[in-house]
């Protein structure tokens, strides 16, 4: 099976990887080429991801044997509909975010561009590697590549960034080491590291305690990396103090890819009937997720800094995804998948707006926005669409994923979760509409009016086009995803469900 379509499986990782160490060589001579090489590499990966998704949907699961060695002796890359879908989501958002990062990097980190784009491309390679691989240890390698580059990128921000990055290093390493321990326990009892092979070898061993402990280690490790409720402490600082283009890249993508790891481990390595029932894990996960939703929304209400508010909002949205996974029925899981895609678009749009605000005004305080819609109408329009989607107002995308989650909660006869989702939508409305109100109307407090931007009526000073077009495309994407969600679900996502749902 060596048609060129199948080689796209390795090209999707190889092209960004080789470009990431072509950038220092080229950047030694031509400084400005770093951005274009990065953009071209991510663009090539996006094309490959579309090819892969199309091939998977028409021809079935792709198995790619690295080095020609058959599994379980060799490493294997498996693309099934869930992978293909995640690959397309990660690639498209990375492309748009990278396009918008050019001016912001030029302004905030002017003399570090070459090294910045090197590490940036390595982060993208790590994330794509996690999505594509079919081997648990290979997943750990790519997980660590993505995490290390993220630590380095977060640390070059402004005040408080190195300490936030150090906290993230400590907690993230614990998470990754727990994942490695889980892999070790599974290797002891089965002797295999391939996901498909483990799925065949594990069911006779479900009575043993080693497999149970392996599942526990996997879940805790992934929960630390995802930022699930009690283990989310590193998330607000890391997202707030990172440079703007870094937050725009990491915030939509990293936690979603970790949620993908959770889904892979729970439903492909272990059977759903085991991982949700053996301890009442589904119940525990959904209650933790409900707590995450409420705590995230309540903490976001108390913030004055736009990026910190969005970071706490991310904590709450991860709660939605884990709620969908923990419910354990078809509607809930479809809602979780759809929410991964929707939330990635929504958060990318919102963080890109925050990046644009930082670029133009140099500040992130919500209460100092003051009538900024006169200066940046398109940007604030995108903010409005993103905010409406986070609240869950049709026809934007957020409404449909919450709809499926509510349907899943009703299927599971759990009215408390329905109430939690509705209350958190209300809280989202509270803090997002506060931002919109400050952006459209003038601040009432006298002493803040001198600090707010003084605006000449009709003057327009938008961000440069290379930042504006991705913002508009992301906002349009939110609307399109909402309108076409039925096609996405019936065309792609129902094939991504594990058997038995």
């Amino acid at each position, binding site marked *: 099976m060596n048609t060129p379509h199948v080689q796209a499986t390795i090209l999707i990782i190889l092209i960004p990887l080789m470009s990431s160490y072509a950038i220092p060589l080229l950047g030694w001579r031509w400084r400005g080429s770093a951005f274009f090489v990065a953009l071209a590499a991510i663009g090539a990966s996006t094309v490959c991801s579309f090819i892969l998704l199309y091939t998977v949907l028409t021809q079935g699961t792709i198995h790619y044997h690295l080095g020609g060695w058959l599994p379980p002796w060799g490493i294997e890359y498996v693309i099934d509909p869930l992978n293909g879908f995640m690959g397309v989501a990660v690639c498209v958002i990375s492309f748009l975010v990278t396009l918008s990062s050019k001016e912001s990097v030029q302004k905030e980190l002017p003399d570090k561009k070459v090294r910045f784009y090197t590490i940036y491309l390595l982060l993208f390679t790590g994330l794509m590697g996690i999505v594509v691989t079919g081997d648990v240890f290979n997943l750990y390698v790519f997980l660590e590549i993505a995490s290390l580059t993220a630590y380095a990128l977060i640390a070059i921000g402004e005040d408080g960034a190195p300490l936030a990055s150090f906290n993230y290093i400590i907690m993230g*390493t614990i998470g990754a080491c727990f994942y490695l321990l889980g892999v070790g326990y599974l290797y002891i009892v089965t002797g295999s590291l391939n996901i498909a092979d483990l799925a065949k070898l594990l069911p006779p061993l479900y009575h043993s305690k080693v497999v149970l402990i392996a599942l526990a280690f996997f879940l805790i490790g992934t929960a630390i990396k995802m930022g699930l409720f009690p283990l989310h402490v590193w998330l607000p600082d890391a997202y707030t103090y990172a440079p703007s283009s870094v937050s725009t890249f990491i915030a939509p993508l990293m936690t979603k890819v970790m949620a993908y790891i959770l889904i892979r481990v729970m439903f492909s390595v272990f059977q759903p009937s085991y991982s949700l029932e053996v301890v009442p894990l589904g119940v525990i996960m959904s209650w933790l997720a409900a707590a995450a939703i409420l705590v995230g929304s309540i903490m976001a209400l108390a913030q004055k800094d736009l990026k910190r508010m969005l970071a706490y909002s991310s904590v709450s949205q991860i709660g939605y995804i884990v709620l969908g996974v923990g419910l354990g029925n078809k509607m809930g899981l479809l809602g979780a998948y759809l929410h991964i895609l929707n939330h990635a678009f929504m958060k990318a749009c919102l963080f890109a707006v925050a990046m644009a605000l930082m670029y133009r005004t140099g500040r992130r305080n919500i209460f100092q926005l003051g009538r900024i819609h006169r200066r940046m109408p398109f940007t604030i329009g995108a903010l409005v669409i993103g905010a409406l989607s986070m609240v869950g107002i049709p026809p934007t995308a957020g409404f449909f994923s919450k709809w499926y989650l509510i349907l899943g909660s009703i299927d599971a006869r759990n009215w408390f979760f329905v109430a939690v989702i509705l209350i958190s939508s209300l809280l989202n409305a509270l803090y997002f509409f506060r931002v919109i109100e400050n952006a459209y109307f003038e601040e009432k407090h006298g002493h803040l009016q001198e600090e707010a931007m003084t605006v000449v009526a009709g003057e327009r000073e938008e961000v440069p086009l290379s930042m504006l077009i991705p913002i508009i495309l992301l906002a349009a994407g939110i609307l399109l995803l909402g309108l076409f969600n039925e096609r996405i679900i019936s065309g792609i996502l129902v094939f991504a469900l594990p058997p038995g749902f």
Partner: protein
Amino acid sequence: MSEYLIGKYNYWIYVVLMMIGFYAMMGKRNLVKKLIGMNIFQTAIILYYISIGVKKGGTLPVAMEGTLRAADYINPLPHVLMLTAIVVSVSTTGVALAVLLLIWRRYKSLEEDEILKSIR
């Protein structure tokens, strides 16, 4: 009971090492001590993997003369996996040290409570 304690002593060693590293990461206030704790934590996991590959009467996994029987050699796969884990550990230490340098340059101190006091 003694089968638990003595027969599986490699697991006890790795658990004790891991908890020492974990305590250093959580309980100490100096950032460099936290980093050393992280290193001990990762080393404990590396030890654990190596210890699961050992066979009774097995020798180094270098192919000797004569017929090859798998029972004669210890399992080389955990060693290969742990090469990767050692590289990851070294890289994490490198990144963490660079971040510590940034912290030192900005706050002139490496104690966590002093840094937090100077941020507030």
